[in-house]
């Protein structure tokens, strides 16, 4: 079952002088098993959009189908726990949600809340900590002694240990060094490709969108501006300009070559592919 938004509107603090329309009649479908990037300017409604997915926010109008659950505006959903187990949501700066004495306990907190036994939770925690790159020597350390990047890994492991089917990440690489960010993105790709999790990621980094994602959803002023696959997205140079997006280096290079008369297909999305194309073009002229 996919994720389907149907005419969803969200108004913050409705009926007060502070009322604010964050999402305006959004209709959107996200395929199961896809790796989708959600992009848009700050304040465009990206976070509001994803926080509906595990019913942290409820629609003011419209409805939302998440897996086998239907969330509508007029009815308060019951048994949110089963939904929240299926949809794991990693917040912006998730390191701020750590609170336990040891890393192991903190990672076990989620699964135990969803009914896992002590042993199951522990096994899952060890496995997920390894996946995010923290070995067993960390288990009994306090999470507050770690570096910022390591804290973030622990927090993400805490969500992964719940074994959600859908993984939603709100700017998971913000504030990380480039190497750390890349490792993190590779981890999400692995979760998507090897473990077949549906991944949604809110991001500002176009390099990540280009190298890791399959689909792109562009949010602007509470509306869906465009939804397409990554190749098509980076082919639409006009739209990129209009959205004031600085394209990834490879795309810039491709466009510069095109301007100088190279005929390059839209699948030229890596340095290797570009180099090969240039090589064959040059050979043609020799």
């Amino acid at each position: 079952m996919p994720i389907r938004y149907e005419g969803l509107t969200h108004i913050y603090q409705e009926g007060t002088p502070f009322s604010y329309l964050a999402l305006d009649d959004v209709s959107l479908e996200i395929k199961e098993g896809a790796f989708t990037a959600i992009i848009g300017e700050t304040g465009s409604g990206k976070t509001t959009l994803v926080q509906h997915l595990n019913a942290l926010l409820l629609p003011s109008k419209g409805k939302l189908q998440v897996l086998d659950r239907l969330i509508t505006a007029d009815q308060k959903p019951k048994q949110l726990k089963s939904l929240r187990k299926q949809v794991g949501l990693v917040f912006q700066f998730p390191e701020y949600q750590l609170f336990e004495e040891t890393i192991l306990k903190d990672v076990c907190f989620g699964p135990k809340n969803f009914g896992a036994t002590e042993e199951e939770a522990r096994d899952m925690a060890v496995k997920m900590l390894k996946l995010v790159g923290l070995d067993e020597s960390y288990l009994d350390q306090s999470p507050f002694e770690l570096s910022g990047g390591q804290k973030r890994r622990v927090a993400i492991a805490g969500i992964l240990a719940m074994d959600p089917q859908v993984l939603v990440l709100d700017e998971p690489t913000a504030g990380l060094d480039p190497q750390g960010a890349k490792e993190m993105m590779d981890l999400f790709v692995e979760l998507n490709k090897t473990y077949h999790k549906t991944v949604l990621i809110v991001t500002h980094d176009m390099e990540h969108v280009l190298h890791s994602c399959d689909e792109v959803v562009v949010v602007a002023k509470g509306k869906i501006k465009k939804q397409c696959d990554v190749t098509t997205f980076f082919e639409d140079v006009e739209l990129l300009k209009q959205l004031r997006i600085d394209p990834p280096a490879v795309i810039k290079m491709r466009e510069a070559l095109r301007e100088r008369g190279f005929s390059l297909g839209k699948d030229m999305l890596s340095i290797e592919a570009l180099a090969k194309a240039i090589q064959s073009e040059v050979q043609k002229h020799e």
Partner: protein
Amino acid sequence: MNNFTLGSYMPYDSLIHRLDPRAKIMGMIFFMVAIFIPAGYFPYIILGVVALVLLLIAHLKLRSVWKSMKPMLLMMVFLLVINLLVVRTGYVVVKLGDFAIYSDALAQTFYIAVRLVLMIMITTTLTATTKPLDLTLGIEDLLTPFKVLHVPAHEIAMMISIALRFIPTLIEETQRIMKAQASRGVDMEEGKLKEKIMAVLSLIVPLFVSAFQRAEDLANAMEARGYIPERKRTRYKQLKMAGRDWIMLGCSFLLMAVPILIAMGYLDPLRIGSLFLEGVGYAL
């Protein structure tokens, strides 16, 4: 937590919003004094009418006052019970075997309730019509004369303004952490006692961690910009008393004077009433 009414600014534009914060604070103090002077029921009628009119002018809804009063209901019930048990003057209203309810007990409770309601009305009017920062500027100015007595006016004002500044931030932070932990399966409403304790813990620990972090960052940022509390500082926003501010001050002073004069016996509410009626008679 979005219905955090007590002490939250409502961005309307009204006469009361435009008044000088110092005048408003002084006005509130006069009003408070008037509330606490025991001069019978008559001043409360005037004060009640004034408070209602102020709410109306400020575009505030009675509902918001009611909301901030709700937490006090339990206290009022408690007071009523205590008064019924303790006060034994006046005439007997109801007699149940050995236990009697006296009229003064009811009157006492009624007065306390009225005072509380009036207090909430007037403080709500002040905080809902004055930006927190203006409020602290006003407090700082009003405290300046006490510098002679070594009252650190500026430091107090700075502390208040920092505290006020971080209330919304901390509320936001709380909501964010609550959402994050809800995503990890925390249920703040249901669950056994142990789970509830765990839920509160999972909220409080991160909140404290980030609050201390913020405090440290703020202190560093202030020091990095050379903040020294004792120095004379200039202000971007200069407060100026206009004519309407003086008029407001005068009116609120009169409002305080009436119950004082009544309490001291210089003024008879019945006489005021009859004079008022005569006046109406002449006018007609």
